[in-house]
């Protein structure tokens, strides 16, 4: 029974390592979005910003063509369905 528990623990560890490696780019995208420019360009990476900012979201949305682009993507996306 103990060896079974140990084996399950081993596979769980493999699963968690796989999860961390696979998800890291997704996490990095999210974490970067909330960092200040200084934190992004720093030589020592910041994992979670202590001073999260929404400025980048504001910048992204407040371009004159943002909603046109959203509309275009929605039209194309809803008229075709591709998995990749």
């Amino acid at each position, binding site marked *: 029974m103990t060896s079974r528990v140990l*084996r*399950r623990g081993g*596979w*769980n560890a*493999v*699963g*968690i390592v*796989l*999860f961390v490696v*696979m*998800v*890291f*780019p*997704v996490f*990095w*995208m999210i974490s*970067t979005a909330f960092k200040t420019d200084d934190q*992004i*360009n*720093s*030589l*020592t*990476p910041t994992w979670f910003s202590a001073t999260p900012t929404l400025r980048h979201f504001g910048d992204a949305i407040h371009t004159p063509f943002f909603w046109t682009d959203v509309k275009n993507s929605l039209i194309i996306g809803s008229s075709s369905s591709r*998995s*990749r």
Partner: protein
Amino acid sequence: MRVSGSVRILVTSGLVLVWAMPQVVAVQVWYWMTNFQNGVVNYVLTELHVGNYFQHDWYATTFSQLGLVTALIVWGALPFVAITIYAALSQVPGELVEAAEIDGARPWRVFLDVTLPILRPVLLILTSLSILWDFGVFTQPYLLIGQAHLNPSNYLMGIYLFEEGYLKADYGRGAAISILMLLLVAAMSVFYVRRMVKIGDVD
């Protein structure tokens, strides 16, 4: 089946997140992560004592450039493959595995003689689809290696085609490259397609 339910849900949702990431977004994030000055990959590898990767330039050699592109494509393709195989595995009848175990088959033999034959059609489809999709891959290498570093020694077929048929507007050569690509893909997948047709005959 071998991991706890919570770990399974964690890994599956992680894979779906990766799957949901658009290609351009994925390339951009990978590009930040592998930046030679403040890329987090260099930092983590150095901190984990894998070696001294301080200001290591991943885009310096063709080998390293193509290695990165390979890693990116495998990372992006893994969720679909893993989730499909997982779904196929859950279709393996438990009674068959149990019967083989009662007959004294060791786990490895159960896998080879019971699980694998049931998985075979799915594996064949996955292999041929992966060849079809990834042979003509363009977005990832073109954006990740980038205009600055692209040169004929690190072209893939898709980039060569883009360069000749699109940028140089050489329609004749573009058409010829397209047909050659098609023939190569067909030649590579013919083996798998034949196997699939054979499996279909048996059923």
